Structure formats: structure tokens, C-alpha cells
């Protein structure tokens, strides 16, 4: 309950934050703090310095202009309060609503969740399914990382140690897009034992022209379920097509997570179940 001592920095700009990260190799970035501080309280994390992004107001901006540019320091709550964001990206809204509890959502940030890359986090599933782009700024300037390359492993992203995640960009839905997020929460932590996000595009005749389906919680890093995506694409998206897609949901996934609460077999099974549930809801079956 008492973190180890650290130096505290509150930069006013992203550039200042980067300089502080360069000067303090031991530093950790503090965003909403709802993953980092619990770890520090148990002394599972003992960073020598904290760089608090809380005073950089640019990072709290949400701009909606066709697509969405979401400042990394936008809280879940702030994003949940945007009706436009909900209309445009229902899957993200649903995932946001599933995060933690109201107190967590009032302070936790979307950028913090993405950069932390907890294997059992809701947000990455939605972001990968939406093919988000991650804007990061470092000593060498700004670069944009596609979702497919951002999440690498447990608690590991493509962020370099001196880089700051500044924005998450979402492209406006192109055509007839439906989406959903379904989750089986852990009874204690509320984290997904399995979470599945689906984003499905239908062509003019109502057939599925593309599908992006992701799993979180049941796997060690958010994963595209390409078997299900392939199975669904080109179909009419009816219940039998969804059933077939769900059967192929775990195809190509090398490993499912297992622990004392739920075996990997169970999580593999849940992945299929929740692919089915999310798709059926999204497609109105």
C-alpha cells in the first residue's frame, strides 16, 4: 500500500515529457494510473521516477471529424460521454463501458490502457478490431504505428522507452459497418477472462465484405482471429455463417491463457462462444 520512493515530474508538454524520459531511464509514464499505481502499491513496480502526463492538456483532446483522433489522456469516462463517438464506434463504446468500474473509468485513460498492454484488458480488443493507428512521439519525432504492430506481447508494445503515446486515430467507418464487444468478466478483478470485439462491414447486397475479430483475456496478447474473419467474409452473415465462423475462431492461435481460475481449454472454448455472441448481436441475428 506504500509505493517505494520516486522522483516526480509533471511536464507541461510532450517534448518536455520526452526530455524527462531521456534524463531518467528509470522513469515510468503515469497516465490514469490505474494499472501502474496498484502495481507500485504492492511494490511489484518500483520506478525511480514518474513522469505524469496529467498536465498536458493537448493529450486530453478528442476530435471527431469523420474519424476520431483521441488524445491518449482522454479518460474512459470522457469518451463514454461522447455520443458521436458511440454512434461511430459502438464497439469502442461497449469496451469502454466494460472497463473496471465507475471510479476507474473516471480516471483511467485510453492511452494508459493501450500502452500498458495488459493481456486481459478490454480496450486493446476494440482498438485492434477498429484498426486504430497509434501516434507516438519520441526524441526522433513522431511516428504512427498500425494496430497490427502496436501490441507485441504481454505488457509489451512497439513503444520505445523514450516515446510517448499521444493519440489514437480511428478511421471513419466505411460503408455499412456493424460492431460489438462481448465479455466474460473475472468474478474478482472484472478483467476479461475472454473478451471479443467484432467489426464487420457489409457490402450493398448485405454480404460480409470484411470482418475484423479480436480476442483479449483468453490469449496472452490481443489477437486477430483470422480463421473466423476468413470464414465470415463473403457470407450473408446469418446465424449459420456465424456458427461456422465461431468454429474456426481459434484457428491459428498458438496459445490460450490458463491459470488456476480458468484452464486454457476453457478460454479457448469461451473464445468461440463469445465470437458467436458478438457476431450475432452485431449482425442482428
Amino acid at each position: 500500500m506504500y509505493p517505494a520512493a520516486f522522483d516526480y515530474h509533471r511536464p507541461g508538454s510532450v517534448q518536455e515529457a520526452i526530455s524527462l524520459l531521456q534524463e531518467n531511464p528509470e522513469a515510468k509514464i503515469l497516465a490514469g494510473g490505474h494499472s501502474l499505481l496498484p502495481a507500485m502499491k504492492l511494490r511489484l513496480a518500483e520506478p525511480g521516477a514518474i513522469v505524469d502526463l496529467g498536465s498536458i492538456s493537448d493529450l486530453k483532446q478528442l476530435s471527431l471529424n469523420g474519424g476520431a483522433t483521441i488524445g491518449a489522456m482522454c479518460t474512459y469516462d470522457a469518451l463514454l460521454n461522447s455520443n458521436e463517438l458511440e454512434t461511430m464506434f459502438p464497439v469502442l463504446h461497449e469496451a469502454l463501458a466494460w472497463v473496471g468500474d465507475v471510479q476507474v473509468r473516471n480516471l483511467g485513460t485510453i492511452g494508459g490502457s493501450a500502452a500498458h498492454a495488459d493481456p486481459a484488458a478490454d480496450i486493446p480488443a476494440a482498438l485492434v478490431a477498429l484498426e486504430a493507428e497509434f501516434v507516438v512521439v519520441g526524441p526522433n519525432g513522431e511516428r504512427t504505428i498500425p494496430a497490427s504492430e502496436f501490441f507485441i506481447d504481454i505488457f509489451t508494445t512497439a513503444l520505445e522507452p523514450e516515446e510517448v503515446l499521444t493519440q489514437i486515430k480511428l478511421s471513419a467507418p466505411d460503408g455499412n459497418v456493424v460492431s460489438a464487444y462481448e465479455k466474460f468478466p473475472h468474478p474478482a478483478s472484472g478483467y476479461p477472462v475472454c473478451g471479443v470485439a467484432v467489426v464487420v462491414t457489409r457490402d450493398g447486397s448485405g454480404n460480409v465484405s470484411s470482418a475484423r475479430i479480436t480476442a483479449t483475456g483468453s490469449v496472452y496478447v490481443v489477437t486477430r482471429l483470422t480463421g473466423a474473419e476468413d470464414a465470415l467474409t463473403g457470407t450473408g452473415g446469418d446465424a449459420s455463417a456465424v456458427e461456422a465462423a465461431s468454429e474456426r475462431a481459434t484457428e491459428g492461435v498458438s496459445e490460450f491463457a490458463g491459470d488456476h481460475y480458468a484452464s486454457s481449454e476453457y478460454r479457448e472454448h469461451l473464445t468461440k462462444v463469445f465470437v458467436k455472441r458478438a457476431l450475432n448481436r452485431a449482425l442482428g441475428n
Partner: protein
Amino acid sequence: MTVSETRKDLVGQRLKRREDPRLVKGAARFMDDIVLPGMAHAAILRSPHAHARIVSIDASAARAMPGVAGVFTGRDMEAINPLPCAFPVGRGFENNINTPRALAIDEVHWTGDGVAVVVAETVAQARDAMDVIQVEYEVLPAVVDAELATGEGAPQLHENAPNNIAFKWNAGDQAGTETALGNGEIVLKQRLRNQRLIPTPLETRGATGDYNAGTDEYTFWLSSQAPHVHRLLLAAFVMGHPEEKIRVITPDLGGGFGAKIFVYPEYPLVGWLSKALNRPVKWTEGRAESHSATTHGRDHVTDIQVAANRDGKITGLHVKTWANMGGYLSTIAPGVATTLYGRMVSGVYDIPNVYCEIVGTYTNTGMVDAYRGAGRPEATYLVERAIDLVARELKLDPADVRKVNFIAQESFPYTNGLGMLPYDSGNYVPALDKALKNLGYSDLRAEQETLRKQGKHLGIGFSSYVEVCGVAPSAWINAEGWGAALWESANVKVHLTGKVVVTTGALPHGQGHETTFAQIVSDRLGVAYDDIIVEWGDTKGTPFGYGTYGSRSLTVGGAAVVNSVEKIRDKIKKIAAHVLEVAETDIELNDGVASVTGAPDRSLSFAEIALASATGFSLPAGMEPYLDETSYYDPPNCTFPFGTHIAVVEVDADTGKVDLKRYVAVDDVGNVINPLIVDGQVQGGIVQGIGQALYEGAVYDDDGQLVTGTLMDYAIPHASQMVNMELDRTVTVSPVNALGVKGAGEAGTIASAPAVVNAVIDALSPLGIKHIDMPLSAPRVWAAMQEANERN
């Protein structure tokens, strides 16, 4: 309601609690709110290993850390004796007692064992220094399972306990039961695991010690459900310090559920540290620390064999239980697993042949002791599962099988075959029938059939329970092994201003004694409710009492209050007779007014009586001034609340997730002083039992590491997982005490876990599933369904 007028009908009213204003305003004082001048803070380094020898401890770096006042190890405090086990198993049985010390000296036996303590100016500094203490361990193999611990080649924890056996105990008729099993028309066997639970009061434990070198007195602030017992045990057994020079104070207590009954190593420790450093020392437990270091509950492995006739009548029940005690014996652990469990395994049923054998074992896990229900939930679970197994096997309605086996109303007081005191009163069929009616049983069974055809798994589960409450008759409990008595005390004083002060040896921590005790006194003394205050929690100022647990406060402590009030009434009559110059037999005492029979204008108001008695200007010859009476009430028997609970669940065929749909309960707790409070007790109890049935379970890995070490892993019920419970009551008055009450604090927990488990098994019975061990988590239920589907 505000009750300023004098009235006689407060007992039975849904009075809102007078405790609440301070609690809803954030103005209560809990353990960690206690701050003393010069106070330092302790942090305890606990063993990272479940079983190891301590080779060496180097605290030099820690001593040099900022703010550190001292670092100590078990060697420094060998003068503190090991803690007492106050409730070993009763006379004639094997007892191999081992208890923990303030800090371990040579060997650690579970990950909660403390090996060193740091005292510093701030908690953070103490924690920093703790991290740099170097301890060299020789790691030893560990065992965590109660049954495996007794097996050949198992790691041995204590020299005096071969095969890790702490005690062996039995009750009932072994030969008769074996004969019944041999002759049974059907005989069923089942292994049941009653998993280990972490009590999890929202406030963790704490302890502050303040030694006064001028008076040689220790003052302790402790998380204690029994401050007088703590003082007694610390004085007589642990610290060897005169009892009158130890004071124990318990402020507002953030829940206990049994876990705060016991004397823990940290309690003598803070006293010793305060004396060593000559300043107050406070220790506040962290939540993860609490999961390791505070006692757990349950953890039984039980084999049952049940014989029955084809009509469902049970003819024999044979029980063998391995009860996990953890690394040492906690304060009353053996008594929980024997008297409170073994003598109750026949439950509400008249089972002609019953035998129960219990082996208490040491393992490299946290100590197990009383947790809400304490033995009775384990007993009820066992017999309620047995009834359902019989009903399922014989294709009989489980409600009918219960009725066939219920102890008949005319059999009370009823003596079971396990040596329990006679059940004081009971009438089991009406409670079951009321529950069936409130549920709409036959309609629900029809709905179940319809849903089954749609592939949905709806289940209805019963639990008919009886518990033993107000465990007190002192001579009896002493024969059971408990080293002291269990009567309860109360003092009632009437001050000069007419205000009444009730002082109790009980220790409320959510049960609302300040309200209910005042309701009782108001009615019986005829004094305005708002003129009565109830005091508790400080050994200086309360009569010796045994505290609050086992649903005993009202049945034993409340009865003591009644006795004190009766003594006050007697004295008032004498004073009134003297002042009004009539015979005592001519005085009537109504609504607090003493008047002459037949001449109501000749009277003394309560204020006049109070003034007269407190000043003593005009009292009968030889009478001492003041109305001040103490009672020590030792009841003739325990009380035996009962009831039937019914759970309705739906199991998700895809995920195994159990959704609670309805919960119907009919309880009989005897007379009810405050229905609002009883409802709250029952609801909270039910949810704790549902927690056991569906979510909770402390898990140790094979090395003795606690896997469910935080609230991220250990799941206690959340609001959204629960439903509104449909409560009802029958009233069978207890003949044991003057109030006719039986106790309500544990009933819900005792009843609910088997109701939910029976409901889940009922839901899954078409698959041929007969049993799943708790917790019935989604992954576990799904695995059982998979297995059944493969079998079918």
C-alpha cells in the same frame, strides 16, 4: 423514527439504527484512525516460503534506513510465549498442540509467519526498511492438503505431531452406523470438499500497543470481537503480565465474521515493541497481508456414506473429515471442527445411526478457525448434499425427502446421536412449506420442464438447516475442551439525571447492539429509548464478557441485560415503597412510573426514582444508593434456529456460468427484537454463503504459495452478481432465554451455500451430474458439463 416518548412496544419494531449517523458521516473511529502522540509504525516481514528453516537474519541495512526506530526478530522476544489454543478437543481425545509465536524463531510453517519487524516513524519508512532485511532460509518441502498431510512421506511440520495430526475426534455410534450401512436399501458414497475461505471483513486487522513505564500498564487497541478474552489470554498465557495492568480497547470495528475473535501474533508483538521502544507502536494490516496472515475458514475434505430406505428415510450417516488447521492451531480452531461441526452433522434430520470421525491436520497454509457459521455451514452442506443425493438416486422430490427425515415437532427438546445439547425447540415442516409456497414450487417445476425442452438448465435447490447458537452453557463447553466459560455480562446503571447506561461484554461490529439492547431496556424499564445509551469495547469500563460471535450477543448478552433490568426493577420497587410509605407488594412499575396499586396519583416518576436512588437522601435502611446492577448470565442450553432456503439458478449451457434467479428464505430465529436488523443479518449471511457456493476459494499451490493473494484473485460477491432475496419467517419461541430469541447472525451463511449447490446440481441433473465441488465457478461447471457430455 425518533423515539422520545416512553413506550412499551419497541421490541419487534423496525427501528433504524442509532449507530448509523456517525458511520454515514464518516465520523466513526476505526482501528487505523487511532493516533497517539509519539506513535511509531510497525511493518512485519513475513516468510516468502511456506516451510523453511531460518538460517540467519541480517537486519543491519534495515537499521540504517531513514526513520527506523528498531528492527527485531523472534530471538529478541523469546520472552513472549507462544499463543494459547484455548479450545483444544475435549477430554479423552488425542491433542498435539502447536501454536504460533509473535515472530517465528527457528522455522516457518506458512507464508503468514512473521520473521522480523521494523518500527519506523512512518509506515512507508518501515516498509522501505523491511525490504532490505536479509534472511537466509533453508527451504523445506511443503504440504497443503489436509488429507495428504497425513500420508506416508508427507513433509512433517511439528515434532510433537506425527503425520501432521493435530487431533483425532469422533462422535456418534460407529458400530450402529456401520450396521446401518450394511443393511441399507441404498447406500451412497460421496467425497465433498468444503473449500477454504478468506473471511475478508472490509477493515483488515490492526493493533496498537502503548506501554506506560510509569504504571507498568499496557494499553492495546485491537481488532477484537472479544476484548476481555484477548486481555485474559495475553495476560495469563502470552505475556505473563498481570491482567489488571492490561487494558484492551476495540473502537468501531469494520466487520469480523469470526476472524477477529482470535489472539494473533501481532497483538503481543505491538505491546512488546512499545515497551522496548518506550513509545506507542501501531500495526495496520494490508489487504494482501491479511489474505496471508489472518485466519481462514472451512477447508474440509469429507467422505460421506449414507444409507436409506427406498421411501427416502435415511437410516445411517457415516462421516469422515480431514479438517485443515493450517500451520498451527489458532485460538479456537479444534473446537470449531469438532463441537460446532461434528456434533451437528445430522442437521434437522432424525437419523437413527450416525457417526462422525474427524482428523485435524497441520499443513503449510494459513491458520483455519471460526468463520461465519463456524462448523455449522460445513455440517449443513454435508447433510444437505446427502439428502439431495438420496432424493436424486430414488427419484424422489427433495422437499419430500426432507420431510420424511425431519425431526418431528413433538420430539423437542431433541437429542441427536452426536452428543450435542438438546435442540431447544423446532418446527421444521411449516418453515419448509412456507418457503415452497413463497416460491410457487409446483409452477416453477413445470417451468423447469418447459425450459429443459428448450435446452435451458434451470435448477431449484433446497437447504433445510439448524444451527447451534448462543454456545454458552459454561460447564458443557468446558467439557468440550474450551478452557474458560462462555456466559455473558451486562451492567445497567441509572444516572442521577435519569439517563440509563447499558454496558455489555459483547462487542458489536455491525450487528446493531446499540439499538437492539436499548429497545429491550426501554420496554422493560419503561424509559425513553433516547435516554438509554449502550457502551462496549473497553475492558476498562465494561464487565468481563466473552464477546460477539456464534450468534450469541442477544441470546446470551441480551439475556444478561434483561437480568440486570430485573434487578433494577426490584430495587426501584423497594425505593418507591419506602418513599411512598407502602409495602413493596403495593408498588406497580409501569412505563417507568412507580405507583401505589389502586392509587395512581401516589407515584414517583422515573426521574424522581433516579434522583432518589442516586442521591440516597431517603432510602430504605441498609440500602446502598444508586441503581447499578450487573448480571452474568450463563444459559441452561444453546438455541437452535432453523429454516429452509430455496435457490433458483440458471446455468448457461455455453459457458457454465451460474446465474442466481431467485432466492427464497424462511428462517425461524425465535422472537425478533428488530426485524430490520434481522433482515440485514440474514441477507448479508446469505450472500456470504452464495459467495462460497459460486465464487470464493483460497487456493494454495503445491509449494504453499497463496495464489488468491489479493482481491484481484479472491472473488467476494459484488452487487451485480446478487439478487433481491425474498425473506420470510416463522416464529418458534426459544424456551432457553427470557427474550425467546435464538440468534440470526449466521443462519444465512449456514443455509445458502448448500441451497445454491443443490440448485446447480438440480439444473444439471439431466446430464447425469451428481456433484461438483465448490466454488461452482463457470470454468468448473463447464468442465463438469463437458465431462458429462463425453460420458453420455
